[in-house]
C-alpha cells in the first residue's frame, strides 16, 4: 500500500474513533445553549467557537461525525445488499432475468439521483432513517453492475463447473463461491460510495431537509452557519473542512484498494 492509501486509512480511522468516543471527546453537551456566549470565535474554552445559540461548535462537530458516518455506512450497506444481490442474480442466471434487472438499472440511472431524493423526502418526513434508506435505494446500481460483470466472467471458470458437478445448489454457488470471489472491485465501489453518501447527507441537511436540528450533523451546522456567514466564519469553515477531509479520506482509501487488487 502506498502512502496516500495509508493517509486515507488514517483519516477514515480517525473519524471512526471520534464518532465512537464522541461523549468522551466532546467537552460540552452539544445541545447546551449558552446565551451569554453567542457566536464567540475560536478560543481556548471553545476551540472551534460557538454557534448562534451559544452551543460549543467542537462538541457539535464531534457528535455530527457520528451522524455523518452512520448515514454513510448504513446507506451504503443498504446499497451493497441490493446491488450485490441483484447483480449476482443477473450475472448468474442471464437471459431474461438479466435483461429485466439491467433495464431496471438503466431506468434507475436515468433519474438525477439528488433530485429524486429531494422529491421522496418532500413526500416522507426528513428523518435520519428515511435519509439512509433513500440514499441506499438510489445508489446501488453501480455495485450491481460491477457484481454482474465479475460474475459473468467467473461463472465460466472451471471451479464453478466443478461445483455444479458435485451437485451444489445455485444458492451455494452464488453465495459461497461467486460473490466472495467478486468482492474486490465491489469493495472499492463501497468505499467510494460511503464518501458519496456522506456528501449527499450533508447536501440534504444543508438544504434543511436532511438531519433535523437540534440533532447536529455537519450538513446542518453548515446550513446554520450560512445564516451568520459574515459574523461567524468558523461556523462554515470547520464543518466544510470535516466533510472535505472525510470524503478525501474515503476516496484515497478506495483508490488504494483498487490499486492493490
Amino acid at each position, binding site marked *: 500500500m502506498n502512502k496516500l492509501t495509508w493517509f486515507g486509512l488514517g483519516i477514515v480511522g480517525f473519524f471512526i474513533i471520534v464518532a465512537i468516543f464522541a461523549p468522551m471527546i466532546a467537552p460540552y453537551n452539544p445541545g447546551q445553549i449558552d446565551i451569554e456566549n453567542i457566536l464567540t470565535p475560536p478560543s481556548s474554552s471553545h476551540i472551534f467557537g460557538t454557534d448562534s445559540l451559544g452551543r460549543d461548535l467542537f462538541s457539535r462537530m464531534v457528535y455530527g461525525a457520528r451522524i455523518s458516518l452512520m448515514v454513510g455506512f448504513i446507506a451504503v450497506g443498504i446499497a451493497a445488499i441490493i446491488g450485490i444481490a441483484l447483480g449476482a442474480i443477473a450475472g448468474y442466471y442471464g437471459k431474461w432475468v438479466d435483461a429485466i434487472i439491467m433495464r431496471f438499472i438503466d431506468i434507475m440511472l436515468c433519474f438525477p439521483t439528488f433530485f429524486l431524493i429531494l422529491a421522496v423526502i418532500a413526500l416522507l418526513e426528513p428523518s435520519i432513517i428515511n435519509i439512509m434508506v433513500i440514499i441506499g435505494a438510489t445508489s446501488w446500481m453501480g455495485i450491481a453492475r460491477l457484481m454482474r460483470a465479475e460474475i459473468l466472467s467467473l461463472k465460466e*471458470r*472451471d*471451479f464453478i*463447473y*466443478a*461445483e*455444479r*458437478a*458435485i*451437485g*451444489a*445448489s445455485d444458492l*451455494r454457488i452464488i453465495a459461497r*463461491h461467486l460473490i*466472495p*470471489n467478486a468482492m474486490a472491485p465491489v469493495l472499492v465501489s463501497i468505499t467510494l460510495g460511503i464518501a458519496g453518501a456522506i456528501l449527499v447527507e450533508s447536501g440534504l441537511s444543508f438544504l434543511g431537509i436532511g438531519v433535523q436540528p437540534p440533532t447536529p450533523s455537519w450538513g446542518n451546522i453548515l446550513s446554520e452557519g450560512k445564516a451568520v456567514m459574515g459574523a461567524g466564519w468558523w461556523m462554515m469553515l470547520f464543518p466544510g473542512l470535516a466533510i472535505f477531509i472525510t470524503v478525501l479520506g474515503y476516496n484515497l482509501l478506495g483508490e488504494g484498494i483498487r490499486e492493490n487488487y
Partner: protein
Amino acid sequence: MELLKINNLYKTFKKHRVCAVDGASFSIFKGEVLGLVGESGCGKSTLAKLILRLIDADKGSIFYKGKDLLNISRNDMRKTRKDLQIIFQDPYASLDPRMKIGKVIEEVYDIHKNVSERDRKSKTIELLETVGLGETYLNRLPSELSGGERQRVGIARALATDPEFIICDEPVSSLDISVQAQILNLLIELQKRKNLTYLFISHDLGVIGSICDRIMVMQSGRFIESGSYEDIFKNPQCQYTRTLLESAFLP
C-alpha cells in the same frame, strides 16, 4: 453392462455460430476406460460438459443406467450427480482460489450428506492420503500448491462423492512431463482399485494409447473413427487419424 448411452447429442454455440458437438452417439461400459482423442477445439470438452449436464444440450439423449438425464427432475439430477464426476484440465482454474483444501472436500460431504458430521475430518484426511496428499494440506489454499498437487485435490474432490463414472478432461495436459506420469499412474491405480469407469479425453495419443481400452477419434464435433488400441494405432482408417498419429510422439 452399459453404463452410459449417448444418442445423437447436438450442441451449437449461437453466439459464435459453431456446432461444437454434432450428433454424438456412443456407449460407455462399466469398468472400461474409453479414450476420446482429437485436436484442440474439436468439441471434446463441450461433450464432457454436456454429458454431465454442466451445460445444456440442444438435442439428443443421455441415458445413465436407463435414466434419461435430460428428462429428469432437478432434484433427481442433483442426486445422480453423485455418480458422475469430472476432473478438469487446468488445475489452476478448477479450484476456488479462496477455499482451503480441506473445505473443498468437506463441501462435497456437506452437499451429499454421505458422511456423518463427526467423520468428515477423518474421511477428508483419508481421501487426501488416497491421492498422495496428507493432513498437512487441510488448511492450505490452492495458491500454495503446485500444479500436480492441485490436480490431486481435483481428483480427491471427484472421488469424494464415491462416483461410478469419471470424465477425465485432459487431466495431465497442463502438467510437467514428470508429474504427468505420476498423475496418470494415480488415475490408473484408482480405476483398478475402485472399478471406476473413465471417459478419458486427451489430444495426446501417447497418453490415450497407454491407458485406454477403446478409443474414439473426434474432429469438428463428429466422431470419425472408433475402435480398440490395435485398430486405431496399427490400422487407422481415416486420413485425420493418420495425421494425428504422425504428429504424435509415440514411444
